[in-house]
């Protein structure tokens, strides 16, 4: 791996995004608008808004980065640019770290905007520091990037790639404890939720919501989400082949 090539790749990905202002607008504004929507949905129940709102601040970056990365890397695979890069002195790690860096940076802006609006305009009431919300949101974005990169290897078209969203992300949203506490689920589902990374992402957000101090549970959640992201990134690297049939 080389820092120059990693940074050049990250810069290139951001420059590509820069030529697509509509995508940037959608990525930045949609989470904010959904939070506003949620604010009025829970007009009479501020506690629920605090709980679901803070969880969504973690879920949004993961979902959007999953979609963006899976399509972007699928394009890279189908357009021949990946084949060309793999015949050049670019490490697989450079490519993956470049993508993670670019979308991670973008996710910070996205999560920062959504968190700022939630805290200052929508009176989201959290005990802990908003910086830790942002930190967990960034890790979630990396996890989304990692998953997107990984599934792009199994999609032959953009149609297939977007279908991995309901297949991989929606079950995690259903099981992460947002709809029902995880320990009240049918035991098989509870065990399943224990091995899904999004459960820990949402737990981490809830820890920040409920505690002014950083708890041991918070750090456990952070380590699990970060570890999952790195493991999936490594899996993603294994799907990049210099030689293809």
């Amino acid at each position, binding site marked *: 791996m*080389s820092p*120059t*090539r990693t940074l*050049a*790749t990250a*810069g*290139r990905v951001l*420059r*590509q995004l820069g*030529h*697509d202002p509509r995508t940037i607008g959608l990525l930045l504004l949609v989470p904010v608008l959904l939070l506003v929507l949620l604010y009025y949905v829970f007009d009479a129940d501020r506690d629920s808004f605090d709980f679901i709102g803070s969880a969504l601040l973690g879920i949004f970056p993961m979902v959007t980065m999953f979609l963006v990365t899976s399509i972007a890397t699928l394009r890279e695979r189908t*357009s*021949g*640019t990946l*084949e*060309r*890069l*793999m*015949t*050049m*002195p*670019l490490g697989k790690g450079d490519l993956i770290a470049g993508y993670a860096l670019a979308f991670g940076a973008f996710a910070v802006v996205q999560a920062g905007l959504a968190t700022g609006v939630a805290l200052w305009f929508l009176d989201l009431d959290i005990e802990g520091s908003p910086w830790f919300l942002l930190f967990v949101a960034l890790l979630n974005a990396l996890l989304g990037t990692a998953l997107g990169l990984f599934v792009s290897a199994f999609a032959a078209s953009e149609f297939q790639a977007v279908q991995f969203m309901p297949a991989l992300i929606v079950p995690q949203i259903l099981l992460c404890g947002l709809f029902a506490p995880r320990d009240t689920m049918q035991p098989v589902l509870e065990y399943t939720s224990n091995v899904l990374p999004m459960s820990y992402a949402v737990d981490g957000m809830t820890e920040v919501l409920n505690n002014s101090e950083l708890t041991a549970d918070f750090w456990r959640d952070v380590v699990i989400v970060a570890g999952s992201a790195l493991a999936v990134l490594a899996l993603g690297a294994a799907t990049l*082949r*210099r*030689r*293809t*049939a």
Partner: protein
Amino acid sequence: MVNKHREGTSPPPAVHARDLGVVRGGKPVLKELEFSVPRGTVTGLLGPSGCGKTTLMRAVVGAQARVTGRLDVLGERAGSAALRHRLGYVTQAPSVYLDLTARQNLDYYAAVLGVPRAERADQVDAALTDVDLHSHADALAANLSGGERARVSLAVALLGAPELLVLDEPTVGLDPVLRRSLWNLFHRLAAERGATLLISSHVMDEADRCDRLMLMREGRVLAEGTPEELRARTGTDSVEHAFLHLVGDAADDEDNGGTGGTGGTGGSGGRRRAADRAAGRDGSTAEVSR
């Protein structure tokens, strides 16, 4: 000059294949290929669509899986990491980022090749000049025509002064004036920089622009040599006729079941005559279009 330094130890050929084979989807796509591409030449890889040209080129640049036999490129095994700085590769479909400008594409690929930041802008400019694309340097690749996009893709391959350029149908769909200027560029790269170029085409009228030719059909090399040699050997007046003649010979060999088929005289001459007649027809139309 790269070709002849130090007597006795001439550098290994740019590409050297022995018993090269590739299997794709359970079917052999390349079969027992033996050839070499001398350094500093413009070698044309000619053959109909589907004959294995692209697979062969992918094997040379190390992008092809399931390659058997031996394939050496610039003295190293094809696909080895040391070669990644020394090759330029243009895929058939232009492999550039459509949502970047031509210049941004080149700048990124130059960074990947390890061109130092201070030299990048100059190298990018030089590559844009080589393919005559300066006026479109800051247009998004998505907004360029197919031919312009192909030239951006070609310009990428010129970055970093590669020793071997592998170009898969680089002149398809370009207007004749531009095609001529690109062929001039290819010869200049060979003459001035000592680069070796392996260029595929399915258009036989590009054959005479090459120093050497490899004629391919159905995963095999039918013949190699200079265009004059191929015409002289087959007693024909164009490479297209020579190709048809060689296809006839190959068919004879198969008919004879390998017993004494090397002579290629006698045998099923009817097929050969049919092939030659077809060549005559095609040749006359080609003459008119030229």
